[in-house]
């Protein structure tokens, strides 16, 4: 199914309160957990994804972000809690399984084959064919035309889709991967740290693609450790720390400063500033960290009407 065919009218049906569980979410997790042997990688995570909404998953390294997306993408299976797709409980046994359910993942390492032409990468695993039986062949011209068109709609204007995808920049490759997911009718798009390896400008470009995917009616899960990237595009935010959920907010209930504070932990940041000072760190750096601490403490001290809401 083509994403264009998604009925625009149905997209915003959950407008009133996206955090409640009625009516059904596109995708929702309830108390999901995962352990590898005796190591608990993830426990009691609850979140939801809806059409035309961006759910951000924030956390530092080792917070359990990767485990979470691997469960949703079908690479691992959760062993506690419930994963619902359109209200139906599911457990994916393979990435193919998740793809068939409309969940597409754009991995950090991109999942593109650098030596292959762009159009071959675009249709990899879902090639268009014509003909019958053993004489079934790929519809190359059509695939090239579609690749060109879809990328143009995403804002990348390529003349030659025959060039190896390895020749594109990191941001452009992200774009190809996103455009691919959108074209193949993904309902849920998981983006695993798409901005982690990019410069400021390229990150901005990728953030815009995220909004475009959202506007096309996809439910987007945006994994990042950068609140400055998450806040402008996100509709709700799940914060992870050491495999546990430390907060789940709707955008109207949280500010960027609060998000940053929750992410970094105000006390830890203050300690870091102190430590840097003692070590005789460069005064400018220390000042910068101290300024950040002041920022953070200021924002956390402001009384909050809405605490962390667990849906």
């Amino acid at each position, binding site marked *: 199914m083509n994403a264009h065919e998604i009925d625009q009218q149905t997209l915003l049906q959950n407008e009133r309160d996206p955090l409640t569980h009625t009516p059904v979410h596109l995708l929702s997790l309830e108390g999901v957990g995962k352990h590898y042997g005796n190591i608990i990688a993830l426990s009691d995570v609850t979140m939801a994804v809806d059409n035309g909404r961006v759910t951000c998953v924030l956390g530092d390294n080792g917070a359990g972000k990767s485990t979470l997306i691997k469960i949703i993408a079908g690479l691992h299976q959760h062993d506690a809690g419930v994963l619902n797709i359109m209200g139906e409980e599911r457990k994916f046994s393979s990435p193919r399984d998740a793809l068939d359910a409309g969940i597409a993942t754009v991995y950090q390492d991109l999942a593109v084959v650098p030596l*292959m032409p762009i159009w071959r990468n675009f249709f990899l695993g879902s090639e268009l064919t014509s003909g019958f039986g053993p004489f079934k062949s790929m519809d190359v011209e059509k695939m090239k035309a579609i690749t060109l068109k879809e990328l143009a709609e995403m804002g990348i204007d390529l003349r030659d889709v025959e060039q190896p995808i390895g020749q594109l920049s990191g941001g452009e490759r992200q774009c190809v991967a996103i455009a691919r997911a959108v074209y193949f009718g993904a309902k849920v798009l998981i983006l695993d740290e798409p901005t982690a390896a990019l410069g400021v400008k390229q990150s901005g470009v990728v953030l815009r693609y995220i909004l475009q995917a959202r506007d096309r009616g996809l439910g987007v899960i945006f994994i990042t450790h950068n609140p400055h990237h998450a806040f402008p595009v996100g509709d709700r935010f799940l914060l992870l720390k050491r495999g546990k959920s430390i907060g789940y907010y709707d955008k109207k209930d949280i500010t960027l400063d609060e998000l940053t504070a929750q992410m970094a932990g105000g006390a830890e940041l203050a300690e870091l500033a102190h430590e840097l000072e003692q070590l005789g760190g460069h005064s400018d750096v220390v000042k910068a960290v101290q300024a950040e601490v002041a920022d953070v403490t200021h924002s956390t001290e402001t009384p909050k009407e809405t605490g962390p809401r667990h849906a």
Partner: protein
Amino acid sequence: MTITQTKIASPAADERVAKRNPLQKLLGRPEVGALVGAIVLFVFFALVSPTFTQPNALATILYGSSTIGIMAVGVSLLMIGGEFDLSTGVAVISSALTASMFSWYFSTNVWVGVLLALLVSLGIGFINGWILMKTKLPSFIVTLATFLMLTGLNLGLTRLIGGSVSSPSISNMDGFDTARGVFASAVNIAGIEVKITVFIWIALVAVATWVLMRTRVGNWIFAVGGDENAARAVGVPVKATKIGLFMGVGFCGWVLGMHNLFAFDTVQSGEGVGNEFLYIIAAVIGGCLLTGGYGSAIGGAIGAFIFGMANKGIVYAQWNPDWFKFFLGLMLLLATIVNLIVKRRAELK
């Protein structure tokens, strides 16, 4: 819904793309290095030896090329798929021995043996691929083990069943003549006898090229060789593709094994050792990357043709054939360096 068109692809970027004119596009093809090499070699031998360009000599060269080239088709595809197979040389002999020993021992029509040999060849390929995917060991180790085991089985079983180091002659058995017609006859074209293997070779190259360039499976072959994990993540059946590639090599081995059997009617059980490298060399000279993800079936065919030209050309030029191996090694080195440069350029941003 409005989508803001932006200038990510600046005019400068477009110009860069536009610069890839047809000539440069051609130079970007994997087999172009081999093609240039083949032309240079052909002209060279044509100048050195007048007999080289005689139609009969060309037919002989093509025949020599085809016996390498048939295998190079399967080996090239396998190499594009990121694996290689050291058991091919002896697997050819295993296939021929199976056909001849079975039909001789049970006194059946040779076609029964031929079909059994097909199953055995595909089975060897399947086992190679299956063990590889199950254990995740490098294909070097897995197929080296298969190579050794098959070498032993060829010698051991042939002696056990036939009591000799070669298979018994089957030339007077039922079905031999029709099988020879299919696998080891010659076609007369304008007074020149061209061996049927040349046509089988060309047909196999055509089919393999079509599969690679125009089918889903071809796309998967490039993908599993280029980046196995990426391929798996977008839903490519990696296991089935790789096992299928090994079975494809098995099929090519069967074709060549049957040719060997019906051309000479007996098979030496100790033969075939070392031939696996010739097939790999043909594929590599033809532009297939040892690391996978890049190459073409036509490249493998050109590699085999270079091999055939060098092999026979040295004889026609009346040189000492001792130099052949040196020459082959040099070709291999040059070809690999060219491939390396191509890959670096392709991966460059």
